[in-house]
């Protein structure tokens, strides 16, 4: 079941290859676009009832966020659409270019191979004839040599021709490159605009998150839960400080216990504070991944007997 037309026809093969690549890129692009539009803002809603004082500023910003968000998809889509088109063009061009380049390379390779083969055959022949006819047939040898020379010249010519073709191609390519660069420039500008917008929106969101106390809220919740367990009776009466570092899973459970950075120098106190941390598991953790990433590594500073002056 050989398909000679497929094997022989370089163009068709390349075309098919291009098509597949394009499809894959296209699918990936659409997928990635959906991803970007969908992701961010959903986890903030449910948890607001807990701390009333901090709710107040939040709804304002929360109400404001959708307003900013609403126009965003259309703009984003436009940009994405534009980018898509541009991308397709770019990719077509790139593919065509790739195809041409490949074809040229193939031709070059084949010619070189042919030349090598012929040269080898000739040498063999020469050697055989030399052995047979020896010195008496110098003329013939000379003729053969001439022939070989001619053949070599031919090969060279062929090569030069090929090179010329290459140069043309390079020139063509350079021309294309100009186009391409222009196109890329355009795209980049579009991207830049989009990125800036995303960046602005991103910071807005971040600022909204911190200002409204989402992060602070969780810090306060964690603080409260651990505080409940701190048995300061085991820390004497003098002011002292302990520092622990913890790493958390999204479930609020500790990974690898609590690491003591600074000891109170009272063993029972160190132990009591460590127990307080362990006992507080699971710690309250936000659903939002971005918030979680800010809280997954924490430094806990304890002053069981009041602040150190």
């Amino acid at each position, binding site marked *: 079941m050989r398909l000679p037309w497929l094997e022989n026809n370089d163009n068709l093969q390349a075309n098919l290859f291009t098509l597949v690549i394009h499809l894959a890129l296209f699918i990936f692009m659409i997928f990635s676009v959906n991803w970007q539009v969908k992701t961010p803002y959903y986890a903030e809603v449910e948890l607001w009832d807990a701390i009333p004082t901090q709710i107040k500023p939040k709804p304002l910003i929360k109400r404001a966020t959708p307003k900013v968000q609403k126009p965003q998809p259309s703009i984003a889509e436009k940009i994405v659409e534009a980018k898509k088109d541009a991308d397709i063009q770019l990719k077509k061009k790139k593919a065509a270019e790739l195809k041409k380049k490949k074809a040229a390379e193939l031709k070059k390779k084949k010619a070189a191979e042919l030349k090598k083969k012929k040269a080898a055959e000739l040498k063999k022949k020469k050697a055989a004839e030399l052995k047979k006819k020896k010195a008496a047939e110098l003329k013939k040898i000379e003729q053969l040599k001439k022939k070989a020379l001619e053949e070599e010249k031919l090969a060279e010519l062929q090569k030069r021709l090929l090179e010329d073709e290459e140069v043309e191609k390079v020139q063509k390519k350079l021309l294309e490159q100009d186009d391409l660069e222009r196109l890329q420039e355009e795209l980049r500008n579009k991207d830049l605009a989009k990125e800036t917008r995303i960046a602005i929106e991103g910071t807005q969101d971040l600022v909204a998150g911190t200002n409204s106390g989402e992060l602070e809220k969780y810090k306060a919740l964690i603080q409260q839960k651990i505080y409940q367990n701190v048995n300061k*009776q085991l820390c004497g009466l003098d002011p002292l400080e302990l520092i622990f570092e913890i790493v958390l899973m999204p479930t609020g459970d500790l990974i690898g216990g609590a690491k003591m950075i600074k000891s109170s120098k009272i063993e029972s106190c160190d132990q009591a504070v460590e127990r307080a941390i362990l006992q507080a598991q699971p710690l309250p953790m936000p659903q939002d991944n971005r918030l979680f990433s800010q809280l997954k590594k924490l430094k806990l500073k304890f*002053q069981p007997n009041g602040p150190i002056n």
Partner: protein
Amino acid sequence: MKQSFWKFFFLIWLVCISNASHALEVIEILGGKASQIPVAVIPFKDNNAQKSMQLMHEVITNDLNRSGLFSSIDISGVSDYPIDEREVNFSNWAALQSQFIVVGKIDAIGRSNSQMQVTWSLIDIYKEKTVLSVAIKGQPSQYRVIAHRIADTIYEKLTGSKGVFDTNIAFVKKLGKEKYSLFIADYDGHNPRAIVNSRYSIISPRWSPNGKKIAYVSFEKKKPVIYVQDIETGKRTLLANFRGNNSAPAWSPDSKKLAIVLTYSANSQIYTIDADGKNIKQLMRTRSINTEPAWSPNGKEIYFSSDRAGSAQIYKVDVDTNEVVRVTFEGNNNVSPSLSPDGKLLLFLNQDNGSYRVAIQNLLSNQMLKLTNGPDDESPIFSPNGHMVLFTYKDYGKVSKIGTVSINGLKMTPIDVGSETILESTWGPLSD
């Protein structure tokens, strides 16, 4: 070259930026609570079925509970008792909110199995590991002492302070008309033994810090006089029998001197006297009453109560310079001072709205905490580790009883020494 330098610079800058943005969030936890460590003491597996030994876990539980720093877990629903870490189902005990469990076994050893060996372990439920494992030997009859010592070891391991469960208290009981006795007993009131019997009342017993002697006030000379009695030999000497009343003995931290109160010249004044009755000196001369002396642990100051400001308040006087500073300000009257072993807490009776309550004051922050509800609490004294207070109180029948209260105010526990009225009590030092 230049380019690579800039690249390098850029890289450094990037590192700095990324470090700054990845700085750890800091959560500050200020203060804490006065909570109790939940602990479950499992009945020890007794391979020789000695009944008294089976009560050891109860003694340990009561000790830990009394301190106010522990709360015992109800184990009535638990059917299998582990004897070491390997047999512990950690998730089950965690579900019971237990932070620690105490397990162990009792084996008969020695000739004709007359000796007992208790092998016990303290296990941390959160960390799922044995904190300590100890074997202790003794006679079966000594099961209470063994249990107290186990409780002491647990206490010291988890709180960092010595336990006081193997110490003694002394108290005066009125056994009948013209029948008074000074008793020494285990700290929880068990094993009482009388060291003084008298037809006259005995008050103000005070244990010397070295544990060898007890000073007390007796009315046997028709007025209060001060005796010092050697506990081991029972030999007693008359320390102070001066003109007027001789009362309120207080040992110096080195057990070499006492502060006493005499009405030698009109009203009550504080004097110091050597333990052998020599070298008596008046501490201050004032027109007001100065009484109830108590030494600071460093021996440099004496706290006392005085009416110099109209109401009775607590002051301190520098033993060398006689400089006086007022210490208490809250409440109508504050009397009967004593100091914690670390000198950081003042213990006294606070009288407000007609009722006397045991109170402590943090001498660093001057914050006061009332430990009891009164209304007729008396003679408070610190346990040797300063974590508990022994005091007398009147129950509904107006009979004086003794009890302990933890200095976090969380646990008040009566000491059962019979139905007779208790006059006064004191707490002995830690045994070495």
